[in-house]
């Protein structure tokens, strides 16, 4: 199935959880925030959140700033 991550198309297996996706992307789940179809998730929910076809994800992390 296809999902959109930070505006880019990505094809993933149908049973992928959010935690799986973050691992595949080499992201530390404790260092990011995820908005799943417009809803901000808590980090504790990453493992139990399964992705569906057409889902939109925004994944953000900290960068330098003033």
């Amino acid at each position: 199935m296809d999902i959109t991550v930070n505006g880019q198309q990505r094809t993933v297996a149908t049973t992928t959880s959010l935690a799986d996706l973050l691992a595949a992307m080499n992201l530390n789940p404790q260092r990011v925030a995820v908005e799943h179809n417009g809803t901000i998730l808590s980090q504790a929910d990453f493992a139990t959140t399964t992705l569906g076809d057409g889902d939109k994800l925004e994944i953000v992390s900290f960068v330098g700033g003033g």
Partner: protein
Amino acid sequence: MDQLIIANRPFRSRLMVGTGKFASNLEMAETIAASGAEIVTVALRRVNIDDSHDDLLNHIDRDKYLLLPNTSGARDADEAIRLARLARAAGCEPWVKLEVTPDPYYLLPDPIETLKATEVLVKDGFTVLPYINADPVLAKHLQEAGAATVMPLGAPIGTNKGIKTRDNIAIIIEQASVPVVVDAGLGAPSHAAEAMEMGADAVMVNTAISVAGDTRMMAAAFAQAVMAGRQAYLAGLGQEQHQASASSPLTGFLRD
């Protein structure tokens, strides 16, 4: 002991520093250490999917520093609220340096959207430190809305011009019941000292440090300037004399 207290939390340092615009994370980490700061600001951005990156947070000891996420990039209240909530979801304490800057040229803060966002975020349990123009009445509105500090700008961000809003900042300091943190425009340690001499509770510096030839040395210079300015304020500065001498006595009529 002279402490800065924000939302009931004590800090020894009155210098807050930003983590933007450094050549490397290593340089950033050594510089914030040299600054003595206990509050460091960070920003939130989409992760870069194609690029494995060196995570900023690997270089900031969270036991030593309070990570203060800003909402830079937000153009209205809704965007700022979203960024603040994302920062909290990413594992930050619910503190936020609220920046709403629809003007892309000078990045001047929007007072109306900032007030709206403050009201919502305070209700949502955030400790809100809003970045504002040096407007005393806006500062009062924000204080009423529950802001933990106000952060008036000395000059537009990144301009290094110093405290161009001096008279209004003096009024804010005179009237505010929350700490006043002078933010933006401080280009030299002398500017930071000036703010502290005026009675500001703290200052926030990023660009002036991160673009210096030697960022670590500049951070130390700012730290010393902030301490010097604070001490001068506490010690009591001699007033500039506008009159050569007193006019006729005003208390001669008092007998007992």
